[in-house]
């Protein structure tokens, strides 16, 4: 079985697609591309495609990852050429690599997402000092309890503090305005969406302007152990864009 990992960016044209919309879109693009796709068994065979971590709706991204199984080997260059031709505006394939057997699936190892959030609301942004204070206050809390709807629809309380790896205010540079950089946990071990974080930040700083006041961009997904590791294995056959 041939396993291919690919990297792509999501522009503003596709940022409102849900995770399922995006999966469906990629599956159809792969079918149009005529890739030698492997299917799951059973009555309703499915393409064995997975994405590293769902991208929140409304968020653009630079480096997203997916994996797909093929029944025949294909060079990364050929995979890329064929799939690229079938992607709509806003989706760009930026790298492809063949993954050897035995490597754990991406979705099980990717656990960190790096976001930048820029103030976009027409309302004036809170002062940098206020924001810094809010950040300090929020991060100093040993636990940040929020209400959450569980899968069964029941409301439960959850501590999101462990999901915040880091959060920092970037020094504003040349007309860039206010910018936050957030490293948050994602994945099967639990995670936190950037909008939820911004909501909590607004509460801590007591200013108005939750998630909707910010434009959020996901810079990348990582395997975070001691360092941030890029999901593209070193030495792999990468075609970069």
């Amino acid at each position: 079985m041939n396993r291919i990992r690919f990297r792509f960016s999501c522009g503003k044209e596709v940022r409102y697609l849900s995770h399922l919309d995006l999966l469906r879109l990629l599956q159809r693009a792969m079918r149009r591309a005529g890739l030698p796709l492997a299917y799951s068994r059973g009555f309703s065979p499915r393409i064995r495609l997975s994405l590293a971590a769902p991208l929140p709706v409304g968020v653009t991204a630079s480096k997203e990852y997916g994996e797909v199984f093929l029944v025949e080997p294909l060079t990364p260059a050929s995979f890329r050429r064929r799939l690229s031709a079938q992607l709509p505006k806003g989706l760009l394939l930026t790298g492809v690599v063949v993954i050897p057997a035995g490597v754990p699936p991406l979705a099980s190892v990717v656990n960190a997402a790096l976001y930048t959030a820029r103030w976009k609301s027409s309302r004036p942004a809170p002062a940098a000092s206020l924001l810094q204070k809010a950040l300090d206050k929020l991060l100093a809390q040993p636990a940040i309890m929020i209400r959450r709807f569980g899968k069964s629809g029941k409301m439960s309380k959850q501590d999101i503090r462990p999901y915040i790896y880091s959060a920092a205010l970037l020094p504003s540079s040349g007309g860039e305005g206010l910018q936050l950089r957030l490293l948050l946990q994602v994945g099967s071990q639990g995670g936190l969406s950037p909008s939820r974080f911004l909501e909590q930040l607004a509460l801590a700083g007591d200013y108005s302007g939750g998630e909707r006041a910010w434009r959020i961009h996901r810079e990348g997904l990582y395997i975070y152990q001691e360092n941030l590791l890029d999901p593209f294995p070193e030495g792999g056959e990468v075609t970069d864009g």
Partner: protein
Amino acid sequence: MPLEKHLEKLLPLVQKPARYLGGEWNAVKKDHNAVEVRMAFAFPDIYEVGMSNLGLKIIYEIINGFPEMLLERVFAPAADMEKLMREHSLPLFALESLRPLREFDFVGFTLQYELSYSNVLNMLDLAGIPLYSEERGAGVPLIIGGGPCAFNPEPLAPFFDLFLIGDGEEGLPEILQHWLALSRKGASKEEVLASLAAIEGVYVPGFYRPRYSPGGSFLGMEPYHPAAPGSIRKRVLRDLDRSCHPLAPVVPHVAAVHDRGVIELFRGCSHGCRFCQAGKIYRPVRQRSPETLQKIAREILRNTGYDELSLSSLSSCDYPGIAQLLEELNREHQADKVRFTLPSLRLDSFSVGVAEQFHQGRRGSLTFAPEAATERLRRVIGKDISEDDLFTAIGAAVAAGWSAFKLYFMIGLPTETEDDVTAIISLCRELRRRIRSDQGRWINLTVSAATFVPKAHTPFQWEPQLPMEEVEHRQGLLRQAARRQKGLKLSWSDPGSSFLEAVFARGDRRLAPLLERAQQGGCRFDGWSEHFSLQRWLDLFAAMKIDPGEYAYRRFDEIEPLPWDHLKSGVSKKSLLWEYHRSQEDNHSLEVQR
């Protein structure tokens, strides 16, 4: 572009923003300045519903195939989006260019369903386009309507500049080309309409005046413009096999209601069900050859990447050689795991051969439409199938692996008695028992009981609808009979919305001001139970002093003129009447036999 900036702010606030952005695969984006005819195809329901419509796919590909024309899509914004658009004075815009509808030359509404009329007006209002044709001068798009409801468009007549009755494949390009030639010459709106009125299938409602008796009876439609023909014959596409079938339909970003490819096997239906409007207005039967269909299927799958393809028509099992076609398609696309599906099936033509061709679609349920549960009532409505057909068809399907079925019935059919209604449940019980004893398996049935709505251009167009209270009573009988029945699920339609549907299906121009008031009063998405309010409509009728029962509950006199008499479906009033009488005779002879 200011509209785009606005959208950027609003879209994060609404549900499923991708409905309003376009940019899907196969979407055609043309430069407005590089073409000479700009048309917006307006579907008066949300994106997910509209994107499932075959007519849209056909027209989209045909018009965009002309280098001098463009056609873009627009759907009814959902309530949350509409609210924001109104708050920010954002005009309704088309998906491809994000341009306001006002900037187009044509806005074409497809009229699929009477309960979407309030959405039609609301979309015009949201677009900042005056509702009434006579209020729209030069520089405002021409408003054109088509689709099944255009066969009695009278309740909408004053809002539209023209309707195209019948097939749009050839008629619409002809209209647009004609308009282009005229607009180059600087023709006035009246000159344009007068010239378009000569095109086969075109109905310019403003050229006709209804006459009423002092007592308020409709006396007929009078052409008063020299360019207006006495009657309008529907447009018929002669050669379906050689006509354009959409090959690269837009692949929606947000999952459509029917999120799959579709090929149209044939148009029209050779059966004579007396309640069925589609069976009359889509005549004659025109087929595509198996070779053409296989080519079309190949192209669509290659251009869209769909893994499901629906073989569509009014009665797909009637396609000669359907089993062989399915077999060929399955063989060709097996490796790509494509699933082929059929919409609602006829019981008498469903065979073991067809059943065996569905190797992959078996998980779902199959849909059949017996419509009525007793032999007598089926004879009356012209549904020429027997109980044996039902047992044979379901038996074949069960043998091929299915275990769940959906059965469509109607309540309130002419001559229906309470026994006919409860017979629905006894028939289902008997069916389950038979299958169990023949094949050792229990099947699951979902029974859907719609309410009969008399429709224009059918033999039952003279028939009254069963009063709402009585419909509710019979639905109650059905529920009672179905109580504690295992393996049987029951659903029914809201009697209020069926009533409103009947009012507009047989309505005339006097309903137009009411529709205007309804739009102003906030009526939207009347086909959606969560938005529909019968009381709001009843209040409107009362305020306008219109008796809706005159339209829905009255038995129309056989000699009285009907509001749609000047629109010719191809089936004459005489033969409809003959069929109507025959249904009464059928009933009589069957009752005598008993």
